[in-house]
């Protein structure tokens, strides 16, 4: 009987011992967002995973603390006169974290792997700029036809379809990161487990506890380990903004890297504090119209609705982060590119358009709905817009919320009237935004098709003069956000970093939201 009584107690104690941390606090603790889905760079599609991959692996180039592409594994590269062939020279004596030499062949292997259909990479298309890549991915061609050639162990030559000026920035993206062939072939799906993992980045994977944290430790085999100051970094997996903020506020976390980790209500109260660091972001929140469904097949109606939205009210009263209002899809800040003016609020014209289209003062307008996935912000924005349209145009729209998976399905099957959406740029070029709305693209999700728009984007791809190219893209974007309006941009996201500037440096808000952990340094008092 005594043993029976003691047993549960013993069990509890042993459970406790196994579950509790027995490590001292890391040098840097940050709230990264929710649990990473994967740490295999070929399979990554989210920003929080991308952040971790930027620490664990290094591509031919990498992005510095200000988001600019700088040499990574490649120390230099040359471009052919036609702008379509890059020749990368890797640094001398590069190594993987287990001591194996890192060569150009590793890059070729990794890129082909990301393209291979069986890998099922969600971002394979970001490699399609390479000649022959798309066909290889579709299973129509063999690997030799892809424009990646190993000249010698430290030289890699890449043949592109078109001159792609943003290619050096592109190759720092997760899908282009190298993976260790032997590990992948030996351990298959399990290769990212801490006991199997091998990488080439400034940090190694020390531990990965699900829904708890990813622990990184400095990689001594990195080519310049002395540039990495912090020895251990813990990235906590936190799903809720309020929990993340509580951890930061109580000092358990040192850094918040995402505005999504701060409850939106208190953002205005935080502004002005020295530890609040806002910055522009290459991301836009917008509404889609289903142009295959009346009344949204009529561009006048789409225009009317777009003109009647008071975007300032939304950014001031709802999102409250100082977000810039979006009149174009592409945020400002891409070097050399001027987004079109778009449409500013004009209620009179909106009413006129509605009248022209057959619904004076909104009479007779069909009962349509705004679809959104259930989240606080989405609902708040939809409630505002619903009220604005009622007030200014006299039309009644319903609010339709769905949980995430159902919402995605509705988007894919065009089972909606209007839907909320957002898009984050993958590289700093307008193409990452505008490419979505080419006819039949998976991310189009509006049913909109404009041959002129398609041809403009195609010609921009093959245009080698950067100024001319941006002009073409601007023309295309004007069609999108001024003339046709299959989407209505609402606001551009704002990135927020929260950290104590008297203790930390090496963190700069930037358009691409790049905050390489290897650049973060603790200030020596």
């Amino acid at each position: 009987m005594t043993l029976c009584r003691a047993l549960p107690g013993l069990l509890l104690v042993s459970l406790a011992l196994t579950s509790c941390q027995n490590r001292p606090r890391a040098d840097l603790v940050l709230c990264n967002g929710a649990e990473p889905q994967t740490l295999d760079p070929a399979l990554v599609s989210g920003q929080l995973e991308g952040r971790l991959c930027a620490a664990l692996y290094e591509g031919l180039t990498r992005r510095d603390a200000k988001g600019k592409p700088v040499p990574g594994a490649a120390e230099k590269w040359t471009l052919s006169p036609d702008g379509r062939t890059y020749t990368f020279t890797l640094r001398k004596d590069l190594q993987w974290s287990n001591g194996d030499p890192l060569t150009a062949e590793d890059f070729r292997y990794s890129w082909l792997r990301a393209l291979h259909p069986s890998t099922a990479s969600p971002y394979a298309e970001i490699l399609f700029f390479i000649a022959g890549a798309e066909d290889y991915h579709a299973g129509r061609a063999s690997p030799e036809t892809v424009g990646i050639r190993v000249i010698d162990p430290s030289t890699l030559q890449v043949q592109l379809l078109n001159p792609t000026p943003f290619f050096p920035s592109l190759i720092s993206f997760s899908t282009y990161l190298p993976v260790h062939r032997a590990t992948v072939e030996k351990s298959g799906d399990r290769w990212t487990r801490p006991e199997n993992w091998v990488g080439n980045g400034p940090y190694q994977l020390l531990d990965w506890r699900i829904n708890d944290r990813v622990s990184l430790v400095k990689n001594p085999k990195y080519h310049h380990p002395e540039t990495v100051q912090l020895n251990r970094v813990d990235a906590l997996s936190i799903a809720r903004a309020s929990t993340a903020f509580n951890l930061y506020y109580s000092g358990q976390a040192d850094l918040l890297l995402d505005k999504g980790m701060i409850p939106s209500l208190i953002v205005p109260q935080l502004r002005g504090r020295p530890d609040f660091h806002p910055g522009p972001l290459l991301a836009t929140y917008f509404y889609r119209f289903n142009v295959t469904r009346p009344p949204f097949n009529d561009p006048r109606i789409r225009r009317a609705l777009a003109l009647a939205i008071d975007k300032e009210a939304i950014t001031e009263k709802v999102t409250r982060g100082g977000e810039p209002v979006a009149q174009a899809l592409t945020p400002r800040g891409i070097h050399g590119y001027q987004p079109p003016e778009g449409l500013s609020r004009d209620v009179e014209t909106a009413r006129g358009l509605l009248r022209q289209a057959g619904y004076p003062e909104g009479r007779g307008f069909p009962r349509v709905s705004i679809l959104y996935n259930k989240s606080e912000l989405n609902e708040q924005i939809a409630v505002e817009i619903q009220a604005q349209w009622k007030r200014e145009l006299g039309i009644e729209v319903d609010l339709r919320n769905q949980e995430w998976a159902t919402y995605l399905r509705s988007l894919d099957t065009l089972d909606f009237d209007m839907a909320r959406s957002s898009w984050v740029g993958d590289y700093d070029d307008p193409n990452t935004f505008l490419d979505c709305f080419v006819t039949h693209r998976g991310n189009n999700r509006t049913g909109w098709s404009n041959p002129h728009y398609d041809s403009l984007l195609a010609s921009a791809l093959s245009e080698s003069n950067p100024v001319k190219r941006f002009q073409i893209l601007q023309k295309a974007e004007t069609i999108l956000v001024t003339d046709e309006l299959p989407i209505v941009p609402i606001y551009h996201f704002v990135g927020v970093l929260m950290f104590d500037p008297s203790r930390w440096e090496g963190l700069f808000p930037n358009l691409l939201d790049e905050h390489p952990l290897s650049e973060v340094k603790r200030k020596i008092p």
Partner: protein
Amino acid sequence: MPSFLLRRFLSIFPVLLAVLVLSFLLVRIAPGSPFSNERALDPATKLLLEKKYGLSGSLPSQVLHYTGNVLQGDLGDSLKFRGRTVTEIIAQSLPRSLLLGSISFCLALGLGIPLGAWAAAQYGKSTDTLLNALALLTLSIPGFVLIPLSILLFSFYFHLFPPAGWGSWNQLLLPSLCLAIPFIGSCARLTRAGLLQTLQSDYIRTARSKGVPESKLVLLHALRPAILPLVAYAGPLAANILTGSLVIEEGFAIPGIGQFFVNGVMNRDVFLVSGTVLIYCLLLLFFNLVTDWLTALLDPRIRLSS
């Protein structure tokens, strides 16, 4: 007695199988795909992924394939957390929830029963009304109010505990208390109701008229039959508390198993959902067995093998 146990044991397998198949079917029937994302997925890739995980083909064939794997001990991979097996996820998260849940369970019974008994003994007086109202309060405050309130109070105002996280003892107390509070109320109410009923019965009345002191009446004679409804309630209660809750785990950043029940469904992560439901069902069946046995123990009038 052993024959009863054996029969219950044997009846566990059909139940587990039914639950496994039904939860698998439900998640597959629900609209949406485990592979979809804000960024559209190429249909060919989607098909490939479905084939890889045995989710293409007709629904019956998917069920058979999955069930076959489970019977061989393979619970499948998570569709959302690539490269992780369901067994691995459960093995890492379940012990944490069990630890938290055990503390909460002890709190719920340890505080609930005495409070309920006290209320019953003070029946009709103001103490009873007060305790009643208190119990009701604990039942009506949802987790998503209790948690931020308690964090504000105990963490930021009184600086007693850290507001979130997992790893040290002082991070356990606040979440286990928040998890236990609604159940303290319900246990107290059930104990009180059971006691009140038993205290009115004839043999208690006889004992009272014979001069047995009230406290002895309550504790020795009335309590055993009175807590029968509570015992029946405690079965599912134990299973629920030991698998944690999404709100507690997300609010306190606890890496337990409770969040998978909700998030797994939202992600249509069918193998993870079925796997966690299986664990939940096992716990449920186990505790129901225990409570049925306890019920028979406490009331010898029940003949289990009738």
